[in-house]
């Protein structure tokens, strides 16, 4: 578009053209002050010219409430969206407490810890808990479980589902409003049928499945959690080029993040631990390196504290660093049991 077509006074138009501003593209990048100096007009006039130019070139103003730039949101809109977001309970109130109510939908949460601490147990528990029907305060949705280590045990999932159903029915014993409708939903078999299980045997398959998740979530409609147990297993082996590995992982995490935002589902990524040398001593840290540690929105580390299992929120944009103890029982993840009740050895 030519400057001559702008709805401004002919004198200014002439000044513009003689100063060399013949098309809009050259005009939109100048500041009003510079323009006023160059054309020897008042700053007020100059900024008017630029406003008109911007309007004509298709840019739109912000009137406070509606940001019309595509994909943008105001902080307030984001806040109210977040208020409506559901959380997926871990099964332990203390654990939920430090997470601000449970695992957040719409975010990627990384969970790391030493072998045997309960990462897989937490994964199965979340896959079950996401299915608690809405009348019982759950999400009533499906889960996708991506198993890279072969540690998923359907028998254990059955146990956890059974216990979850018992506990949910128990706590809702007195208000039966609408509960009859979901009678057939409250069966362990129904819960298990809604866990979609992928067994991955190489990192290529892992990348392929994650790329393909978009389609599957669309097909299955209400998937609210994707659990990857674990993200690191195949990547820590047979990948020689470390720089390339970092970039491939980065891309994976981008894909997961997009998925989480697009379908407001929770992505839970399990990670293994490794040792790292800091200040001359070896310390435990999560695997896959520093670049990866930036990739996940939240990072929770499960660790031993004496004889208790504890969860520690290491990184989160909205939560304080905090830790809470939990235990892994026959029923799944629960609050830590007080010591007096348990048999102590020796």
């Amino acid at each position, binding site marked *: 578009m030519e400057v001559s077509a702008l709805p401004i006074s002919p004198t200014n138009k002439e000044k513009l053209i003689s100063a060399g501003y013949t098309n809009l593209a050259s005009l939109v990048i100048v500041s009003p002050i510079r323009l006023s100096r160059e054309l020897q007009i008042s700053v007020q006039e100059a900024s008017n010219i630029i406003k008109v130019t911007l309007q004509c070139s298709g840019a739109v103003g912000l009137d406070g409430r509606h940001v019309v730039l595509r994909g943008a949101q105001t902080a307030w809109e984001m806040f109210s969206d977040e208020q409506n977001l559901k959380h997926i309970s871990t099964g332990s109130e203390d654990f939920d407490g430090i997470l601000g109510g449970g695992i957040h939908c719409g975010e990627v949460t990384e969970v790391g810890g030493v*072998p045997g601490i309960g990462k897989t147990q937490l994964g199965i528990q979340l*896959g079950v808990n996401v299915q608690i029907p809405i009348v019982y305060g759950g999400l009533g949705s499906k889960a996708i479980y991506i198993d890279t280590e072969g540690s998923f045990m359907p028998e254990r999932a059955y146990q956890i589902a059974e216990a979850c159903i018992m506990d949910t029915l128990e706590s809702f014993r007195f208000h039966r409003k609408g509960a009859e409708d979901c009678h057939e939903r409250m069966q362990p078999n129904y819960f298990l049928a809604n*866990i979609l299980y992928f067994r991955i045997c190489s990192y290529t*398959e892992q990348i392929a499945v994650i790329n*393909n998740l978009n389609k599957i979530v669309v097909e299955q409609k209400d998937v609210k959690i994707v659990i990857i147990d*674990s993200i690191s297993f195949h990547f820590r082996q047979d990948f020689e080029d470390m720089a390339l590995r970092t970039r491939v992982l980065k891309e994976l995490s981008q894909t997961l993040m997009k998925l989480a935002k697009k379908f407001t589902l929770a992505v839970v990524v399990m990670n*293994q631990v490794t040792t790292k040398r800091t200040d001359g001593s070896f*310390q435990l840290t999560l695997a896959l390196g520093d670049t990866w540690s930036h990739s996940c929105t939240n990072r929770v580390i499960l660790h031993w504290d*004496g004889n208790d299992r504890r969860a520690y929120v290491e990184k989160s944009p909205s939560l304080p660093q905090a830790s809470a103890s939990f235990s892994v029982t026959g029923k799944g993840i629960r609050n830590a049991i007080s010591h007096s009740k348990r048999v102590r050895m020796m």
Partner: protein
Amino acid sequence: MANKLVAHMRLPQPISNLLAARNIQTAKDALSIPEFDLMTLLGVDIEDVRDALARISKVASPPYQTALSLLEERLINDASSGRLPTFLKGLDAVLGGGIPFGVLTELVGPSGIGKTQFCLKLSLIAALPMSYGGLDGRVVYIDTESKFSSRRMIEMGRNSFPEIFYSEGMAQEMAGRIIVLHLTSLSEITESLQQMKLRFLQHEVKLLIIDSMAAFVSGDNERSGSMSRDHLLNCPFSFLKSIAEFSCIPIVVTNQVRGHNNDGTSQYSFLGKDTDNNSEKFMNQVPALGIQWAHAVTIRLIFEAHSGQKFIKVAKSPISPPLAFPFTVCSSGIALLSDDGIEMLGQEINVIRSQGFFSIFDAS
């Protein structure tokens, strides 16, 4: 799935030609390059690359099944849900019937505690006829430390299954089913396992034991070697896992222990160091193979000795609570002193102690 050919994925012809020209032949080649790099490499638009990658991903990703169908499959098909009983009542009960098929089971403990005894007993059981509770199959026993004792094995058999081992020819047949390989390097193991794959598939072999895995990598436990040790072992453990799943047999692997240097190895940076005192007192030992190995095993049984007693502890298992069983080694192999496990608190389950063990000898 990873080795599917890109050329056969029905991609648009131009892209397909370009991929072939850049020597990107399998799904693995295509998917291990970041999107952007692939775009520059092929010199086409990002949209085309994305479409192509989406198509490749779709073909290369394995299908899903529901956890329910997985459970039903296990109930019907006992090859994948089968267990190898240990004939130790308490241990079998918590493991859901014994050592599960298709996964890695690890035995860790100090030397002389009874790991090899346990392995010998397991191989006998796997060779036993079905009617006696065995698996009626062959056993591949990879002995890396020359600790396999056939005499001890026959003795164990005679004491625990007298009706079989004293009947004519049966002892020979049972022992004949156990194939012992003396291998001394990882590459040898990998090679011979590759060769045996067909046998695994024909369900002749019902148990694979490697005693011990740590032999290749122990020796000097210098700190500097710790990284390369982890690295060295990377290859076999994913290979072993694939063998286990591929052939649906239990794989039992033993692991040694080494001294634990209290340099905060088991601590996270945010925890500080004060909690370490506890373990210093005990002078603990840690498994010789590092933490990455520990992530790969599905079941870990720790053998330890303290306060004049030996214990088997179920340290890692997706189904069992953390329990410890006191045991002794007798003429028929390992025997549990009590079938009710002692529940362990927290980290105690992972501690490996070996003192108090020698005091048994002093006392006797």
